[in-house]
C-alpha cells in the first residue's frame, strides 16, 4: 500500500487543478510587467498588471511563464485574489500570505482559501516555489510609482 498522505497534504486537489488549468494565464498588452525569478531552478514568472490611472487599483492581472505545480497554482490563486483590489488591499493580502507561509502566522478569515498551501511548511525547500509570484507582486507594489507601462519596467 502506497502512503501518499504527506504528498497529498502538499499537492491538494485544488492545487493540482489550478496547476493544470491556471486562471488569468496569459499576457496583457500595454501593461506593467514584472518578473519573478527563482535562480536555483531557473523558473520565471511574468506578471502583467493593469492599474487605473491613479495607480491605485489592480484592474486586471495575468501571468505566464514556466514553473512547478506549486508555483503555477500559487500564481493562479494570487491573481484571482488581487484582481480588482486596491494596491493597499493587495499589499495586505501579500503580507498575510507571506507571514502565513514564512512565519506561520494565522491567516485572516477572508483569505482562508490560501490555507491549501499549509502543507508547504513541511517542505522548506519548496517555499520559494509557492512565493515566486507573490514576491514579484510585492516588488512591483514597492516600485509602482516609478514603474512605466508597455513592458518598459
Amino acid at each position, binding site marked *: 500500500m502506497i502512503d501518499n498522505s504527506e504528498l497529498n497534504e*502538499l499537492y491538494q486537489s485544488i492545487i*493540482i487543478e489550478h496547476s493544470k488549468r491556471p486562471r488569468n494565464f496569459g499576457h496583457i498588452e500595454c501593461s506593467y510587467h514584472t518578473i519573478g525569478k527563482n535562480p*536555483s*531552478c531557473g*523558473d520565471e514568472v511574468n506578471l502583467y498588471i493593469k492599474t487605473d490611472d491613479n495607480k491605485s487599483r489592480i484592474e486586471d492581472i495575468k501571468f505566464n511563464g*514556466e*514553473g*512547478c*505545480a*506549486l508555483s503555477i497554482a500559487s500564481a493562479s490563486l494570487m491573481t484571482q485574489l488581487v484582481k480588482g483590489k486596491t494596491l493597499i488591499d493587495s499589499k495586505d493580502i501579500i503580507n498575510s500570505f507571506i507571514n502565513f507561509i514564512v512565519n506561520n502566522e494565522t491567516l485572516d478569515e477572508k483569505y482562508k482559501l490560501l490555507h491549501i498551501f499549509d502543507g508547504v511548511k513541511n517542505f522548506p525547500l519548496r517555499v520559494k516555489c509557492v512565493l515566486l509570484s507573490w514576491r514579484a507582486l510585492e516588488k512591483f507594489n514597492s516600485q509602482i510609482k516609478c514603474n512605466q507601462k508597455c513592458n518598459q519596467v
Partner: protein
Amino acid sequence: MNNIKKHFPLLNKYKNLIYLDNAATTQKPDVMLSALNEYYTSFNSNIGRSVYNLANLSEKCFVDSKKIIANFIGCKKNNIIYTNGCTDSLNIAAYLAKQKIQKKYIILPISEHHANVLIWQRIAQENNFKLYWISEPELILNPNNIELDVLENTAIMALAHVSNVTGEIYPVEKWCKTAKEIGAISIVDGAQAVTSLRINLFQIDCDFYAFSAHKLYGPMGLGVLFVNDKFLDTIPLKLGGGIVEDVKQEYYILLEDITRFEAGTPNIANAYAFSKTIEFLNNNNWEQLLDNIHKLSTKLSEELINIGITPLSISNSFKKTHINSFVLPKIHSHDVGTFLDKKNIAIRVGKHCAHPLHSHLKINSSIRASLGIYNDENDITMFIKAIKECIHYFN
C-alpha cells in the same frame, strides 16, 4: 546490501535511503572519516616550517597524499596542487592560463558546467576575447574540423571530460591534441570523470585538469589541479607564505616549482583523508567498482527508455557514465524531486549549473539520477517504480 555499502556510515544510518545524487556529492567511507580523526589526534601540526617530529609526521601525510593521488590519475606529484575544490581549481587554471593568452578565441562545448563558463566569460570581457561555443556533435567529436580561421586564433580549449548533465564522455584527448597542434591551452574539468572513469593524465596530455575530492568519496573543501610544467613560470592567483625564495621590501622571488601555487597552510587533514579514500577505492578494486556503476547506469537508462523516457544527450555518438538526466512531459522537475523525496529517493532537479545546455536542448529544467559505488540493482528498480508512480500521480 552490497559489500561496499557497509563502509558508508550515513547509508547505514538511513537504511531506506536511495541516494542517487552522486554527481552533486558522494557519501563518505568510514576510512576517510577515521583518517580525519587520526590526523587531528596523531599528526596535527603545520608543515614546511618546523623541524620537530610531529611536523615531520604531518609533512609525511601531506607528501604521501600527493603521491597517492598523482598515481591514481597518472601524473607526477610535482604537477598537482591542492585547492578548495574543482571551482577553485578552474579559477586558478584560468588565472594562470590567461597570462599566456595571445589569441582571441576561447572554445567551449555547449554542455559546460558554469564552473567552466563564467571564468572564461570574465576573461573574454576583460580582454576583448571571444567565446566560441560548440554545439555540433561532429565538432565535439572532431575539434580539428572547427573552421580554420577560428582554430588559428584560438587561445584556450576548455571542456568537461564528462558532462554533469548528460553523463556523456567527451573526447578530451582529441581536444588536447588539437589544442597542442594549434598552440592553444587545454583545460579539462574532470569533476565528473574522476568518479566514473579510470583517469590517465599522461595519455590525456592536457595543460590543466581539475577535480574535487568530495565527488570522489573524499572530504569537502579539497580540490586538485594538475598544472603542466610549462605553467610553472606563471604568477600564482594567491600570494602569501610558503611560496617564495626571498622577499625584499619592494619585491618577492617565487619558488620555481609547483609549491609557488600553494600559498598559506594547505588543508593537510583533508589531503590525508582523501589519500586514504583513494587507497580504499584501490583496495576495493576500483576498475570493478567502475564497471558496476556503468552496468547499473546502462540498466537505468534502458529502463527509462522502456517507459518512454529518453535520457538527455547531445548525441548518441558519446558513451555515457554514471549520470542520466531526463524530463517528464508535463511534470515539472521540482514536483518530481519532492515526490521522490517522499519515497526516500534523493535525486537532483533543476538546471544543474548548466544553463547554456538547457537552453540548447530547449528545456527549462531536468531530473538527474547519478550513481555511485554503493548503488545496486534494487536502487534502480525502486527508482523506476517511483518514476512510474510519479507520472501516474501528477497526470
